[in-house]
């Protein structure tokens, strides 16, 4: 079983987003980037499968700048190989273009199972796994948990609305968008990551892609606040009284 994990770095929301209000552009170089949390879960699920059935795990990132640390961290956690798709990419590269590059790579390099985070904070409609599967005409499922390998089939769960869950099965090759791994993503000690940086390599694969149909971002802007919350100041008892008064005024409590 050869598993490919797609990983991506996203703006770190611990820092404020850097936005040029005049031009409506995100200032990518002024922001810090961290591995997408959902991709960490996809990697963990892949590593759990590796622990269980001995799969070979490759982690892949599109070279949008500083992705090496993310890839070496994945190697330190237990991934077998790391691949960086190089070409005309930067932090502003669209998901459509990234998906095309990943699909091209997958045509030349066969994998049985592709796991990706179900979404990323800069792509909350979960585009990449679906687009990769679409471009390759592979089966795809999203919002997936509890992946297992059963003979030549992959079994997994999918969440539906209203608290319903489904157990599904699919043949490989297959692309899954992982909602959460069965365990919290494992920790890679700094010493191990640094050791990986010295002892292992990231395979660079040229993935220059043809032009793809893309959306043009006209501008980014901060939402305009419609109203403000009222902050109630004072001693806890006064604040509690005021809250009760407001609740009564709005007829939200009886008595």
């Amino acid at each position, binding site marked *: 079983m050869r598993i490919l994990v797609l990983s991506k770095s996203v703006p770190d929301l*611990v*820092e404020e987003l850097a936005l040029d209000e005049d031009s409506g552009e995100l200032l990518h170089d002024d922001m810090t980037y961290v591995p997408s949390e959902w991709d960490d879960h996809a990697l963990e699920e892949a590593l759990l499968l590796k622990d269980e059935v001995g799969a070979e795990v490759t982690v892949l990132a599109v070279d949008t700048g500083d992705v090496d640390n993310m890839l070496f961290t994945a190697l330190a956690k237990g991934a077998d190989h790391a691949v960086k798709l190089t070409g005309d990419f930067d932090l502003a590269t669209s998901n459509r273009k990234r998906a095309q590059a990943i699909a091209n790579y997958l045509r030349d390099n066969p994998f049985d199972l592709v796991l990706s985070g179900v979404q990323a904070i800069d792509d909350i409609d979960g585009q990449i796994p679906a687009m990769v599967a679409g471009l390759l005409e592979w089966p795809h499922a999203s919002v997936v948990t509890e992946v297992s390998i059963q003979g030549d089939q992959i079994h997994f769960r999918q969440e539906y609305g209203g608290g319903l869950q489904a157990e599904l099965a699919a043949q490989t090759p297959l692309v899954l968008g992982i909602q959460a791994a069965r365990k919290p993503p*494992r*920790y890679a*000690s700094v*010493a191990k990551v640094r050791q990986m940086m010295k002892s292992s390599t990231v395979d660079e694969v040229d993935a220059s892609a043809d032009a793809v149909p893309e959306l043009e971002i006209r501008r980014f802007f901060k939402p305009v606040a419609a109203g403000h919350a009222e902050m109630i100041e004072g001693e806890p008892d006064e604040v509690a009284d005021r809250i009760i008064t407001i609740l009564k005024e709005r007829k939200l409590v009886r008595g």
Partner: protein
Amino acid sequence: MQKAKPIELELAVVNGIELPGHWNRMFEPRVISEYDLSVLDQVTSIEGAESLGYCYQCGKCTAVCPVDTVGDYSPRKVFRRTQLGASLVDSPDLWLCTTCRNCLRVCPKEVNMIEIMPAVREQAVLEGKAPEELLTAFENTARYGNPLGEPPRKRADWVKSAEVPVPVMSQHKAPVDVLWFVECYPSYHPRGKDASVALARLFNALGVEFGILGTEEKCSGDSQRMAGEKGLFEMLAEHNVKMLSKYQFNQIVVTDPHAFNAFLHEYPKYGGQWPVQHYTQFLAPLIDQINLTRPISKKVTFHDPCYLGRHNGEYEAPRNLLKAIPGLDLVEMGHCRETAYCCGGGGGGMWLDSFVRDYTSQRLSEKRVREAVEYGADILAVTCPYEVSRFEDAVKSTGNTGKLEVRDIAELLAYSAELI
């Protein structure tokens, strides 16, 4: 004939007194102690953890271990359980030690938990057996340079509330006398920032030529090292040494005793050799120059931080500062100076609150707060950034709100000098 090798330390030094053990030297396990020692051997074969094997179970450590007073942990018990074949890497024991150093103070065999704990914990971290909340603190530190997960770019934002000049070295572009290494909690924690503001105003009132690294500073990493993340510590040490090396200054003054420990004993190994003082040591000789006009007519007791007192031998400077405040009545608790109790924050304890709660009857900080109340103190004076938040929480959780205030010494001085 080859000389038989003792399985204990040949000569231990306790409080400067040599304790040769030749009269009761043990060369092999006695019949009564013929256990399968393979599990103990696994631990003592880890570099740094060798001295666990020296334990001869006198139990002196148990008598002074703060954790033993609230739970079922002491260095002797760690040895005994390991000797009987229980895996230390899998045991909660491994995460309960706060590296307070009280056991080493009394141990006749120099069983050194200060070296054993980080060494075995490192192994546990590598095997993925460390508590989740501790790993979160490690990850935050690796990613943001502080265990709180606060934005690195806002590390120096507290200076705005100081309302006095706090030069940041990268903009100051001139040599200074004192490089103030502020550390994480004094930069980000609301109560830590209060102490930083107080100290900044004291420095200004004294006319100290000082500067801070600002966003170029990262956590000193000493507690992460003690909690088993040596690689992270090395990365932080290399970074801080590199940043500090860019600037000219005469000495480093630290707010945090844990940073003090790192700069004294560890950073020199990474090329960072500078004279370093804890801020209480820096201020003590200058106390006559601080205009302490506003009396604090309260009973004040002082909690010795483990890493200022027991680890590094400074007991007087904080007390001299407190005694200089007019009206202040300094009372000592039973556990003070060398025998001081621990706040529970050291050795990673700061980030193991939920984990430790499952194995202890109360927090060490709660026990300490109860002791301060017992001695009739109105104010618990502290001088380690972990302590203000730990003890203030403990005051609330032990139902002592209104009875005991927790104040950093810098806050008390600045208040008395009418700077805050």
